[in-house]
């Protein structure tokens, strides 16, 4: 404000950026001096740095010297009396809506103070194992105990880890792309499947890591696998293993996992077997085993003073298509079925997209048809042209009519999700025309704009129409109504949509409205997710662990695409979906009926 009038001359200060190079130098020590109880090591690097300054006659003023010395005193690391990361991240967490829960803070304290940075974080799904691991990493970094860390995770979670570390912990990390990255990134996120393969494996073994974090660590249950061998041979000072299911089938899995972390904690395998294994699924001496496990494993469960989520109320809303719309839908679907599966793999994608778009909105499907016609020009399939004409002749949109009525009924802040940008634009056009005030949110917006729109929505907005890519990393706990205008074919994406609203910090029950067009693929998806596997009632994160344990040979989306496009008969589709649903239910039951809870403590 008044500062314009001030003449400011800033003295030339030393840049922290240019000095980073010096900091990264390996500290060189003189040979240790042995005292009766400990060694004393004098640094040569620090002294050399000072001598260089004297030689260069780089004399700083005495005032700066005194101030810098005071700053040295302020930055000292003390014993782990209190967690530094809580205060350090307080402001950032406020900005991103992160609330560290008491069970998480307790876990971090226990790992650092008692388990000395070596632990299996085995919280039940949805209790925030990643947050705990991030806090532990940050705490060690703030104390100068970790400079180099490696996070090994399934490939699909690399990006998620990157974002979590950046947003929630202000930790700048890299995602491993080439073999050079191993040595040049201080904090690196990598796929465990890449890491175990040569030449990566041999490079990793040579690097001394201060901290190793392994997500989905149940993949290390078998000591004969390349994954296990790799982790066993790695040099690591601190190690965190994250898994909700430390044992799935056999007590040996537990022994293998713990031996990676702290070999000998359970003795040799022979003594472990004799002491603790009645048969492979029944533990002997559970109290003693529990005691040993509590020195390396922490498991928080729901309802033990951990996290209480509000309820979800799901409401499928059936939309009846008009006869014109039905005709267009049927024609497009049968065209795709006739053409789509016959096309080779590179060409199938536009047809799959078209099939999914036609479930979302005819406007989105129309735009894709137009692009396809333009691409092929005069050689375009006449059926495509005909379909385009049919689609553009439509003057009604039953789904949007229902949406308008629904929004009037809710009369509160609502987030409407759609998969496609074209659908988003159309929805906004229709709602604005009907007198609603809307805000649009999509992946093309810059971070600043996203923040601004979120702020507007929180303060005065009524309806936010968002695409999925736009919704990533968005926290909208202040709103408790979600409308799924269309249904993604991947239930994880549906879970992520709901997760924007139904997350830690939500104080009200969440209402989810699914718009389902009768007699379309959407109805099948809804049948599978809602009626068959009851996905909406699952606890946060449960679905993810089920899908991982299912070990599908392709993506869930890919599986559904095959079912829908390969089968003409509705009954056949229903049968296939039932089979898939059964597999999911069975997997869920297996996870829930874990006989191991008694030994986790």
């Amino acid at each position, binding site marked *: 404000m008044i500062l314009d009038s001030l003449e400011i001359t800033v003295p030339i200060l030393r840049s922290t950026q240019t000095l980073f190079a010096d900091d990264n130098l390996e*500290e060189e020590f003189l040979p240790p001096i042995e005292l009766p*109880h400990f*060694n004393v090591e004098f640094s040569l690097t620090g002294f050399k740095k000072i001598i260089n300054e004297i030689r260069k006659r780089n*004399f700083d003023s*005495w*005032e700066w010297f005194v101030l810098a010395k005071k700053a040295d005193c302020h930055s000292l690391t003390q014993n782990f009396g209190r967690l530094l990361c809580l205060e350090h*991240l307080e402001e950032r967490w406020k900005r991103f809506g992160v609330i560290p829960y008491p069970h998480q803070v307790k876990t971090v304290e226990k790992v650092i103070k008692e388990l000395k940075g070596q632990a299996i974080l085995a919280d039940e799904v949805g209790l925030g194992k990643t947050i705990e691991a991030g806090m532990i990493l940050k705490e060690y970094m703030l104390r100068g105990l970790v400079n180099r860390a490696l996070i090994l995770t399934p490939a699909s979670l690399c990006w998620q880890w990157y974002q979590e570390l950046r947003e929630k912990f202000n930790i700048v990390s890299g995602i491993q792309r080439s073999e050079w990255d191993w040595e040049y990134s201080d904090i690196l996120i990598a796929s465990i499947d890449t890491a175990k393969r040569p030449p990566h494996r041999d490079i990793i073994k040579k690097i001394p890591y201060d901290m190793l974090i392994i997500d989905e660590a149940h993949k290390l249950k078998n000591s004969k696998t390349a994954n296990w061998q790799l982790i066993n041979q790695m040099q690591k000072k601190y190690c965190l293993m994250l898994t909700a299911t430390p044992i799935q089938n056999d007590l040996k899995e537990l022994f293998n996992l713990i031996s990676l972390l702290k070999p000998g904690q359970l003795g040799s395998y022979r003594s472990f077997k004799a002491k603790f294994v009645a048969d492979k699924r029944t533990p002997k001496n559970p109290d003693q085993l529990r005691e040993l496990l509590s020195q390396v494993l922490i498991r928080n469960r729901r309802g033990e003073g951990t996290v209480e989520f509000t309820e979800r109320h799901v409401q499928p809303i059936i939309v009846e298509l008009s006869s014109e719309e039905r005709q267009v839908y049927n024609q497009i679907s049968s065209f795709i079925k006739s053409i789509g599966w016959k096309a080779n793999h590179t060409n199938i994608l536009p047809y799959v997209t078209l099939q999914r778009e036609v479930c979302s909105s005819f406007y989105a499907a129309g735009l894709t048809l137009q692009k396809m016609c333009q691409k092929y020009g005069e050689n375009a399939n006449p059926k495509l042209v005909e379909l385009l004409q049919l689609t553009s002749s439509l003057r009604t949109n039953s789904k949007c009519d229902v949406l308008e009525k629904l929004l009037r009924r809710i009369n509160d802040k609502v987030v409407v999700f759609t998969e496609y940008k074209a659908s988003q634009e159309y929805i906004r056009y229709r709602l604005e025309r009907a007198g609603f005030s809307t805000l649009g949110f999509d992946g093309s917006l810059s971070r600043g704009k996203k923040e601004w729109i979120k702020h507007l929505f929180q303060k005065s907005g009524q309806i936010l129409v968002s695409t999925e890519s736009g919704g990533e990393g968005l926290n909208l706990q202040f709103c408790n109504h979600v409308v799924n205008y269309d249904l993604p074919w991947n239930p994880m994406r549906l879970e992520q949509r709901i997760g924007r609203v139904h997350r830690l910090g939500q104080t009200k029950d969440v209402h989810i409205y699914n718009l389902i067009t009768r007699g379309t693929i959407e109805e099948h998806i809804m049948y599978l997710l809602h009626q068959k596997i009851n996905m909406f009632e699952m606890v946060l994160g449960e679905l993810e662990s089920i899908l991982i344990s299912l070990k599908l040979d392709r993506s869930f989306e890919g599986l559904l695409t095959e079912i829908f496009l390969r089968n003409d008969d509705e009954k056949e589709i229903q049968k296939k979906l039932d089979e898939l649903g059964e597999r999911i239910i069975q997997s869920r039951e297996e996870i829930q009926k874990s006989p191991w809870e008694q030994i986790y403590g």
Partner: protein
Amino acid sequence: MDNVELIMQFFKLCNLEPVEITSGVWQIEITTDMARELDGYGAKGGLFQFTFEKELAEKYGAELISPGSYRLDSFLKYIRKQATYSTACLPIHTFYEPSIRTKLLNKLAATNRNSRFYVIDYSYKYAPYFMLVVKLSYLAYEKREKIRKLIVDMVSGNIINYDIPEQLFKNGSPDTNCYKRKLSYKKAYERIQEFLTNDLAMEDPSWAKAAKEQIHQDRQRLEEYYKDSEDDIAKERRLQELMERTFPRVQILPTRAATLYIPKLEYKVMEANQTDRLLNIVYDPIANRLQNS
């Protein structure tokens, strides 16, 4: 020095003057260069509002500078990069010469009651001292740090084992009138090493004993695990890892240094006895020590 004083002093040394826009909330315009130093390359300069109180930070949305906060850490990081080496001088007028003279004469008279002493002349010369600030990291299963400063007389090579208040010193070095340094910096560092090692040997070693006990247990655990195994390489690697990670040690890292110039007073004293004698006495006001030159 608390955080408030530290940050305000920082701005003062940068020739920046924060404006208190409301009670307890300050505002300042920081340059892009400084913003980059604090927040990384992407940061831009501009108005920066800060406070030292949590309630005010919440009320006005100003950045909170408090122990452990991100903002205090970023400032500390920046400040600590400055002033690796400095020079300072303890001005002669810090001392009241007449009282030193009286003290000197009294001391001489006490040692030789048969003589009388007269100060014929006096002068002063600055002696160079090397002050090294070191960070001591006590490492075992945990880590604890402390800062120590050590001062070596660069003429005599003695370590000064008492604190001289830093505020008495003035920036810079005297142009002339200085003793020549007789000790190399390397030698000075060796003296410090010797002194600190002796000092550490006298400290309470209970932390190291506890760590060694824990190591013993962990070693036993590893021996048990590898009892049936023939993989000696893996066992050795694990044992080595354990020792590297947890063996108790104190690492000493020099962080910054300064050459201090402290005056020594030189007196020409006449000893009046049966035979008169001229004495050249050097008085070290810091050590409170008389020395025949």
